[in-house]
């Protein structure tokens, strides 16, 4: 266990993977703890507060919570892009765990693995967030 921790700490890629996995787990915990019924989310939309108009990402927290609870139809009603973004985080969690194992076992193809990870992550990110980015570009 100690040697594994040392191995993780000595390798930046593994450290980054573990930190990201932790961040994604925190997002899942946030969606699970706060309830869409009680509407007790601590994060509120800045755009809505400033302009009074809802933005394209409004209802994302509700959507995540409802997806976690298996209410997919309601999740779509809250935010139509909620499922995409949620799947992005799930895919990232899966990739962090999988790539860490592959990286630890294959010493020869580490560089290729990192390049594949970066490219795949960028593609998945744009697939999930492109509507938000289009919205930002459109109005800025």
């Amino acid at each position: 266990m100690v040697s594994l921790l040392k191995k993780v700490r000595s390798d930046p890629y593994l450290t980054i993977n573990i930190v990201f996995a932790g961040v994604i787990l925190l997002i899942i915990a946030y969606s699970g703890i706060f309830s869409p019924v009680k509407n007790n989310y601590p994060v509120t939309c800045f755009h809505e507060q400033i302009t009074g108009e809802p933005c394209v990402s409004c209802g994302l927290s509700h959507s995540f919570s409802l997806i976690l609870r298996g209410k997919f139809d309601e999740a779509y009603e809250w935010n139509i892009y909620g499922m995409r973004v949620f799947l992005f985080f799930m895919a990232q969690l899966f990739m962090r765990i999988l790539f860490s194992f592959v990286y630890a076992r294959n010493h020869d193809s580490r560089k290729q693995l990192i390049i594949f990870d970066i490219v795949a992550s960028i593609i998945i990110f744009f697939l999930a967030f492109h509507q938000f980015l289009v919205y930002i570009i459109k109005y800025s």
Partner: protein
Amino acid sequence: MEENVKKSSGQNLGIAALVTAIVTFVLAAIPCVGLIAIIPGIIAIVLASVGLSQASKNDSPRGLLVAGLIIAIIACMISFSQIFVAGKIAEKANKWPNRIEEIVNDVQSDVLKDLEDANVSIKVQSGDEKVEINTNVNKKDREQTLEDLEMDKKSDNDSATVTISIGK
């Protein structure tokens, strides 16, 4: 041993900067929380800059640090652009100027209403002597007074007419 320390100098800062920068980038891409992303973005830039200065002193690898710095700068730019996004949406929705005008009008009408129906009470007390003046500027009372005055004027005019006819 010393060479290893030299090589890993700035590496931990690089990891921290890269992680913070990527988290900032994801946050900046979400319009709801995009504005807050500027804070971790600045933290990431600072971490990467400090790491880069350490790395350049010890001649250690800078890949992570440069990647962290670039991603943080792009994320900060996206986050900063959210200010313009908010401005444009407000402008499009015609919210800000209208709201300010509405607020001013509301305050003005409230003040006028308060003044119209105000009851003024002045009390002056000096030792045992006490003078109290009570008056109201009620709109209804003022209208009544005006009507009374008009009626008086009218009756005066009527009497004047009568006087003239007698004169003929």
